[in-house]
C-alpha cells in the first residue's frame, strides 16, 4: 500500500465537523434527513412540573446517523431525575426513518419505525400518544422503574416547504408489544429561518443562524376510545441557533393546553454533527 493510499484512508477516518442544520423542533419530524455519513450526537434535557409529585428532569442522549440519503437511523438512551425520588436510566430507543420518494414534492412523506425498550419511569416526553396524561406520571419512581415496556411506534411524517416555511405533520401509532391497544397521537410544526438569505460575512450571533417556529402535539386516544377525551395537548414555541462549527442549540418552553397536561415543560437541546470520513458516502 503506497503512502498516498494510506493518507487517503487516514483522511477518510478522521471525523470532520459538519455544519448541516439540525431540525429546530423537538417533537415534530420533517422530511429533511441526516446527510449520508454524518453522525449527530445530542443531549436533550426536559424540565417538567408535576402536580401530585416532584418536578423532574428527563433527558435523552441521541446518536443520529445518515446511512443513505433516504435512510436515517437514530439510537437514544433515556434517563430521568425526579425531585426527592432519585434518578434512573429508563431505557433505549432505536428508530429508522425512510423517504420513499426520491424527489421533492408539495407534500413529502417519510416513514418512521421505532422500537423502544423503556420503563414506565421514562419522562422524556418525546411524543404524546393515547391517554398519556400528567396524572399517570405522578407514580413514585421506585414503582415505575420496575415496570418494563417493549413498544413499537410508527409515524407517517408529511412535510412541505412553502415560501420559506417548513410545515410538518406527524401521525403516530404506538403499540405495547405485550398488551394493550394501539395508541395514537399527532404533532404539527411550522418552522422558518429568521432570515431567508445568507450574508457574505462570517458570523455566529446573527439572524441567519437562527430559526424558530411553533409546534403543537398531543394524544388521540387508542383503538378502544379514539378522540380527544382524557388526552393531553401542548403548544411549544422553539428556537434553534446553528453555530458555524457544527453545533446546534435549541430551546423550547412548552405549555399544557388542558387540565390533563403538565402545566409547563422546558426543553433544551445541544447537538453536534460530525462527518465520519470525508464525503461521508
Amino acid at each position, binding site marked *: 500500500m503506497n503512502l498516498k493510499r494510506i493518507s487517503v484512508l487516514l483522511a477518510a477516518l478522521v471525523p470532520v465537523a459538519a455544519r448541516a442544520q439540525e431540525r429546530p423542533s423537538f417533537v415534530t419530524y420533517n422530511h429533511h434527513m441526516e446527510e449520508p455519513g454524518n453522525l449527530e450526537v445530542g443531549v436533550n434535557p426536559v424540565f417538567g412540573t408535576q402536580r401530585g409529585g416532584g418536578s423532574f428532569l428527563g433527558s435523552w442522549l441521541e446518536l443520529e446517523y445518515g446511512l443513505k440519503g433516504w435512510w436515517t437511523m437514530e439510537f437514544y438512551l433515556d434517563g430521568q431525575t425526579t425531585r426527592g425520588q432519585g434518578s434512573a436510566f429508563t431505557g433505549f430507543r432505536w428508530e429508522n426513518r425512510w423517504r420513499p420518494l426520491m*424527489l421533492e414534492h408539495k407534500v413529502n412523506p417519510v416513514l418512521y419505525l421505532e422500537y423502544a425498550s423503556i420503563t414506565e419511569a421514562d419522562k422524556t416526553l418525546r411524543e404524546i400518544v393515547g391517554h398519556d396524561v400528567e396524572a399517570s406520571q405522578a407514580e413514585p419512581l421506585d414503582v415505575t422503574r420496575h415496570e418494563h415496556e417493549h413498544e413499537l411506534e410508527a409515524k407517517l411524517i408529511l412535510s412541505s416547504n412553502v415560501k420559506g416555511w417548513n410545515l410538518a405533520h406527524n401521525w403516530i401509532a404506538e403499540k405495547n408489544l405485550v398488551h394493550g391497544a394501539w395508541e395514537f397521537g399527532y404533532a404539527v410544526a411550522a418552522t422558518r429561518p429568521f432570515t*431567508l438569505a445568507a450574508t457574505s460575512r462570517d458570523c455566529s450571533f446573527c439572524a441567519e443562524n437562527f430559526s424558530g417556529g411553533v409546534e403543537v402535539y398531543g394524544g388521540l386516544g387508542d383503538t378502544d376510545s379514539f378522540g380527544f377525551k382524557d388526552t393531553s395537548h401542548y403548544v411549544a414555541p422553539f428556537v434553534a441557533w446553528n453555530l458555524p462549527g457544527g453545533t446546534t442549540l435549541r430551546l423550547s418552553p412548552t405549555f399544557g393546553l388542558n387540565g390533563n397536561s403538565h402545566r409547563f415543560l422546558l426543553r433544551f437541546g445541544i447537538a453536534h454533527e460530525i462527518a465520519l470520513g470525508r464525503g461521508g458516502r
Partner: protein
Amino acid sequence: MSRRRTTKTVGAAAWAVLACAQVISGEARERPSGVAGAPAAASALRNPYDGDPEAIGAGRKLYAMQCAKCHGERGEGWGNAPSLGADEVRRASPGALFWFLTNGDLRRGMPAWSRLSEPRRWQLVAFLKNLDSATK
C-alpha cells in the same frame, strides 16, 4: 373489528402501497441521474442573484459550510462526490443546478438541500456559476 372493516382497511393499505410504488417507479423512469435530470421548466428558471457579488460571497460561505466536506474546498471532488468543474456542471443552467440542489440524488448520496431556503440555494448557484473566479 368486523371482517368487512378489516377487508376495507387491508384494501386501503394495498392501494396506498401500490400508489407509492407507482410514484417511485415513475420517478426512477423519468429522471436521468445528476443535473441532466432537471425538467425543462426548472432549467429555464433564472437566478435572481445572477452576478450579484454579495450573493456570490454568501454562496461561497454556504458552500464552505455545507458542500466543501464532500466536493472539496475548490470544488475538485473526492470519492463519489464529482468535481464541480466537470463539463456537466459547468454547462448546466442556473435553473438546472438549483433543481439538482433542491432534490439531490438520494440514491447516489447527494443530499436534498431543500432544508436551505430558496434564496440560499440561489446564492449557492451564483457561487457555483462563478466557481473559477470565486475560489481564486
